[in-house]
């Protein structure tokens, strides 16, 4: 009797748990087949997600980077940014549509310029660390063990074979084709590992949902 009292949605805290479970079941109903119950919650999900983004991504940024600099700090030049950004909204106009490309051009140009920085801070660092791997015993590498040395050779071999597989500038035949095939197999190991990790991450979410239904909704004690 006490369990039933706690289970039923008689308080706000219980009602919201019931709503959460209803959402979960509605989404999982797709596993049976496409149905109106799923479609209802799917549209609600899209509406809620789009509506939510207006707060932290719209109003918050507008306040932090436009209203605050102008009306709190007094930097008046920022006043020109929003009207210029509003050019984007002319994209739906047949006559003035081209002005939206001024803003899109600015965004694309800036992204391209920023990629130089990203290339340096991300890829060159990786290249550097790859090339610094010791491949023989020397006085400058006193801590190098046989195990580490083998690992370094394996690392380099996989890197070079996979890169050979992705080189399409010339026809792959003979020895190069053999190396590229080995690269494809190594790539399968990498993709298998990613696949395994992705499955486990999704399983963790699935377990989380099952835990929510069993523990929070049905009030069944699960685990320790």
């Amino acid at each position, binding site marked *: 009797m006490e369990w039933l009292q706690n289970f039923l949605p008689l308080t706000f805290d219980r009602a919201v748990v019931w709503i959460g479970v209803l959402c979960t079941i509605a989404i999982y109903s797709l596993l049976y087949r496409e149905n109106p119950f799923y479609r*209802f919650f799917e549209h609600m999900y899209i509406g809620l997600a789009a509506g*939510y983004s207006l707060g932290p991504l*719209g109003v918050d940024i507008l306040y932090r980077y436009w209203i605050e600099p102008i009306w709190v700090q007094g930097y008046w030049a920022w006043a020109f940014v929003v009207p210029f*950004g*509003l050019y984007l909204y002319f994209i739906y106009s047949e006559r003035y549509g081209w002005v939206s490309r001024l803003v899109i051009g600015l965004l694309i*140009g800036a992204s391209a310029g920023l990629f130089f920085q990203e*290339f340096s801070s*991300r890829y060159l660092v990786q290249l550097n660390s790859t090339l610094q791997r010791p491949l023989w015993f020397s006085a400058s590498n006193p801590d190098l063990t046989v195990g580490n040395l083998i690992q370094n050779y394996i690392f380099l071999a996989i890197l070079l074979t*996979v890169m050979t597989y992705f080189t399409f500038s010339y026809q792959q035949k003979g020895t190069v084709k053999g190396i590229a095939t080995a690269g494809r197999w190594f790539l*399968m190991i990498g993709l298998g590992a990613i696949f395994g990790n992705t499955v486990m991450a999704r399983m963790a979410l699935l377990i989380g949902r099952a835990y929510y239904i069993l523990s929070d909704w049905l009030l069944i004690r699960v685990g320790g």
Partner: protein
Amino acid sequence: MTWQLNPQDQWLWIWAIVLGAFVLVLGLIPLLQVLPPRGRRALVVGITFLAGLFFAAEFFMPVNEEQKNMLTPAIQPAQNLLQLIGALALGLGTYGLVRLHLKNVVQKRTQWGYSVVLLVSFVTMAFFSIWNTLAEKELAPKTPLLENSFKLLFDFTLVQLDAAMFSLIAFYIFSAAYRAFRIRSIEASILMFTAMVVMIGVVPLGAYISYDLMGFSAEPTPEGASFVQMLVHNLGLPKVANWILTSLNAPAQRAIEFGVGIGGLAMAIRLWLSLERGIT
């Protein structure tokens, strides 16, 4: 000319400048319209090039002892500007979504009822999300209505739907894997074997099979162990899974990343110089 005004004393000036900026920038459109198609393209190409040049120049220009050059102080405001325009672009996406579903409702297209659901949930959530953002900045009152409504809409509806939607993918991954692994090739076998080892190795089941059932050593390799001893100490599934992830997966990933990096750099240069015709 001063770039900063005193908001307390010169608020009238600030309002006048903001209004003037709107009139000036939006009033520029009829003038821009006079440009011939080649002139318009030249303007877009010029803005694209200058925007890219600014960030590229800041990166390539020599720096002083403080790791700065003459453009460095302008980087943060430039990034803020991009954030601001990005936020306006988000509004454009939202506008497109609402426009489409409003059309569905007005024209009573097939299944327009779902568009009503979307619009109602959008308006409700937008109202409370904006109110909540303003309340966090102490620009609006934080009432129990706001707290309960936002909790209901965000924590107990949106978050739940989000988690359910993403966990649903687990089923489709299994289904896709079943179909993929039915193709009997060396590549599919390698992929399946690696995935199995990683999946079992990273959960307690892998440790149970390796250490409790098969009796492999769970201890780390002792100092000064021979190569054979090292191998014997690392045959447990969790250690093999870890080795696959760090020693076999990492170089394959890095090779892919190098390819992505070089391709990205080539594409960035093409975009910067407006050689990609379809965009600018």
